[in-house]
């Protein structure tokens, strides 16, 4: 069983937290913090297994993690999971993210935390590994995205417009317009 899946960056900021056993929010944050402290002090060239922290698990649990660029992917698992298997699962997860976001980077995870959750839910369900085949996972995700797009359809048109307007970043653009020039131009314009 997988007890928790945590993704955080090199500074310990959570980017994804999925607990398959209930902890209240403050305890969750403590666990993330503790896990970060355990994981971050390890070199990159040491092994990826770690005896569990005090807050989560116990002697039966292990932290299995991978470090990619700015992000740590940490799985907290018990002894029924194969260590190397979980490492491969992390790889599959990250590769799936890479496919979904096209060259995934930390920003993708920051701004699309919900999408990451949806992807993860195709890999792991309730702490058990659901699907490990990337093609299958991608197929499921694409089909679901298609449904979302269909539903968006016309009703989402105003929403899209709004977001387009928003992304125009109006305040900035208004500022960018050189207002002083305008009166000058008008002045210069001779009738």
């Amino acid at each position, binding site marked *: 069983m997988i007890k928790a899946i945590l993704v955080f960056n090199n500074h310990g900021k*959570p980017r994804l937290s999925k607990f398959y056993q209930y902890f209240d929010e403050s305890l969750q944050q*403590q666990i993330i913090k503790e896990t970060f402290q355990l994981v971050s002090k390890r070199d990159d060239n040491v092994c990826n297994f770690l005896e569990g922290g005090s807050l989560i698990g116990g002697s039966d649990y292990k932290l299995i993690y991978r470090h990619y660029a*700015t992000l740590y992917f940490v799985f907290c698992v018990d002894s029924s999971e194969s260590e*190397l298997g979980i490492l491969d699962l992390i*790889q599959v997860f990250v590769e799936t993210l890479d496919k979904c976001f096209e060259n995934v*980077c930390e920003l993708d995870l920051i701004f699309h935390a*919900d999408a990451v959750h949806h992807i993860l839910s195709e890999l792991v369900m309730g702490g058990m590994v*659901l699907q490990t085949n990337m093609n299958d996972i991608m197929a499921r995700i694409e089909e679901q995205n298609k449904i979302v797009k269909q539903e968006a359809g016309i009703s989402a048109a105003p929403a899209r417009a709004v*977001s387009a307007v928003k992304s125009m970043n109006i305040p900035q653009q208004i500022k960018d317009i050189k207002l002083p020039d305008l009166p000058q131009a008008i002045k210069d314009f001779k009738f």
Partner: protein
Amino acid sequence: MALKKVKGNFFERMFDKNLTDLVRGIRNNKDNEAKYISTCIEEIKQELRQDNINVKCNAVAKLTYIQMLGYDISWAGFNIIEVMSSSRFTCKRIGYLAASQCFHPDSELLMLTTNMIRKDLNSQNQYDAGVALSGLSCFISPDLSRDLANDIMTLMSSTKPYLRMKAVLMMYKVFLRYPEALRPAFPKLKEKLEDPDPGVQSAAVNVICELARKNPKNYLPLAPIFFKLMTTSTNNWMLIKIIKLFGALTPLEPRLGKKLIEPLTNLIHSTSAMSLLYECINTVIAVLISISSGMPNHSASIQLCVQKLRILIEDSDQNLKYLGLLAMSKILKTHPKSVQAHKDLILACLDDKDESIRLRALDLLYGMVSKKNLMEIVKRLLGHMERAEGSAYRDELLYKVIEICGQSSYLYVTNFEWYLTVLVELIQLEAGSRHGRLIAEQLLDVAIRVPVVRQFAVNEMTNLLDTFTVSAQSNSMYEVLYAAAWIVGEFAGELEDAEKTLNILLRPRQLPGHIQGVYVQNVIKLFARLATTCLELQDLPGLVKLCEHVLEKLQHFNGSSDIEVQERANSACMLIEMLRTQLSVTDEGMALMDTTTTEGGGIPPLAIEIVQEITLLFAGELIPVAPKAQRKVPLPDGLDLDEWINPPPPEDAASSSSSEHDKDELFVSAGTGVDGSSGGGGSGGGKRRQSLELTPEQLERQRMARLLEQSSNPHYLKSTPTASGSAANADQYDNIDDIPITELPLDMEGVAALRVGITKRSDKYLQEQQQQASAQGGGKDGKKKHKKGKKSKKSKNKVAYNSSSESEGEPKPLHIVNTTLDMPEGVSMSDSEDKDGKYDPHDPHRALDIELDITDFEAPAVRSTTSSKKPSGKENLKVPAETTSSSSTSKKDRKKDKDKDKDRESKRERKAAAAQPVIDLIDANTPTPSPRHTSSNNASNSVLPDAAKPHKQKKKNKEKTQASAPGIIDIVQEEELNEAESASKSHKKKHKKEKSQRKEKKKTSSASATDYEQPLGISTPSKEIF
């Protein structure tokens, strides 16, 4: 109107933040994140009041993000449910995600969701149901499990593999919360093991593995099915799970293990996936442990495992190295020899840069030492210690050195002079800041338990006392002085130059109080020894001088700030003063009448008596006490530790005297214990403890009075004295004389040989050993050594030593450890009390310990040998189970007995004919890829020989007929179900407790924005499994 609504929407939407805006806002407000988020939450609350579901949906999505940052969003539970119930997939998905993040099985809102979730589960859109299942798996409660179990079971036979897969996994969660579901659902679950879709199959394996991990015995009958899957499947993920499951099953059924060896060995040879290889090795190890005897060729399997592990350890991948060492340590427990062959490799790992690998290697070392290689290994460890950086690791090394040398009563230490030298070197390395006490204990232990080495020890310790400088650092190494002082004092008789040692002890030094106290005490011991010598030599002036000298030096201790030191020094001074007065009296007396110098060399008889008395104080030998002996001493009858020793208010004379005697009684018994154990060593030991001797009548009277008093005292916990207990107590002190004390024979030649060159460096011993070995072996290492000295075999008590005598070529132990321990009567050395910690009342798996109606894998075998008579369908299995469950309890009992008989019968038959199906399987067990499993994605999986395919097909048919035969049917046991209910209740409680432990905590951390765009760089796909 419509326009207005749209317009309203538009404007609302225009000013609402979406998730991206929220994230951007939080990132722009790093300095006052908490404030920003609280304003956002206010906005979200506004949005949630809107009618528009899309607005709500947006708000819930934002809440989910905020939850990740550690904010409680359970207040929005109702809105989340609203969003979940939306007909749009987009909203539904957001709703279920939020629910899975913040709901938990105790959420009261969950009872609102039952029908909605049921509707979703039965939705036409498979993704609606899929999303519902994913969400439900995170927050399913016992009530939901009960209400939805049937719907989920229906989904298990859905036409869509995606839903089947999810439903199968979901059932595990249902079982955990609602154990009653397990029995009816199990046949279906079993069916899914043979599902055409590999994903569903894998999910079913996953669920059964989880179930079986906690209650393996109930799933033993499924072994043939799993065996078939193992030999046919190519899905590595599933194979790993199955192999892990077999690892849990083999301890229960050794015959299964024997069948497994061969296919597992084949897998080990054929697979290219390291993860699978590793799990195979692990299970083979488990099998070999469970069938430690009776396997003719298991040494080959061990060899294979060790070889493969060697490859793992040699790999440059640190993960493989780590796991290899981990698995090695498992082999080590049962087959230390095969691991010892790879000593070089493991020692090399000690140099690894990864600390976890170094520690694993150290763990292995513990089991790898032998008499032959101990010196060498310790030498290397000492070398590592000198080089190692970081005091924690050095400490660990020091600890390991002591651990490997001290294990099983110094089994592998053949030369204790060497060991003492090592200990002294460890002290001089000044590495173990924490382990000073440990070394001190070792020094004491060796000196006490190995009488032969004492002379060497006292001299070493004298040197140590002389040269050791207490550094100002906060390390605890000075503790060794405690041991050193005690050893030189206690074994003063072995000292060559006692006077020198005495002077060293008397030297004023800055030391902690408890060590100075020991110094003073041992000064008296040494003084007694020297005074006796003076008596023997009739050296009156020498004795006087000695007294003067010691008295003068003790003044330093007299002024100590430590109360203990002061007291001891004062007592010592008084004692010596007494002697000196006597001596000075004689001086005058001698001057008066020198004619009476007939005997005693002029030393007055009174002085002689005092010296003898002082010597008697320290006479007698101490023998080691087992670490737990004290704890296991039963409380003597009538001894009440809670009772006042000195009653607080002045009472009548009788009671006060009784408590006084009470105290005395305690000490008398302890005193006789010590005397008794000292045996013949302490002559006249009885003199040492002068105490009030009470007549039995007096004692009895006092005890009665006390018992009366206790019985009328409501605060007194009455003991329940059992007859046997008191008898044991009575015996205890009588029998202490009977505890055998071994007189250990010396191996004279060895000791003599060593005496020739007493060297400081421990390496000398190693060289010596090697020289000896080469001399004996005629220059070759592997040659057999001549028989061990007969002398050493005589002693009965050296069990440990004798047990290892089968190993050839090992050096002869020069010293023998005294393994006699002081133990109370009727107490064993085993630590039986240490195993109670395992029981966890909250473990939901306890409730799942339900016997299942699984066709016993023995049964088909019996039938097949008797030309299978009645192959009936599996569907029948459920019917008898139901009828029996409704029957009366007495009937059930009878039925149980019957079942037992049946079991026994089948067991008997088993011996004759059973295990045949398994044998059948094995005969044709060349693993083949089953065609339906080789999907495109499995291309990277292990490639197995195709040649065996037709063979396989035949086997499958055979199995089908076997599987369809009915088996032994078990009965529903209601007690178990009740237990299950109570267990789930207690689970609930646990959650509440967790909730109450809530604490507030805020996060302050800033991330540099520049990193974010860095791609994750996943250019090295391993993907060996998938």
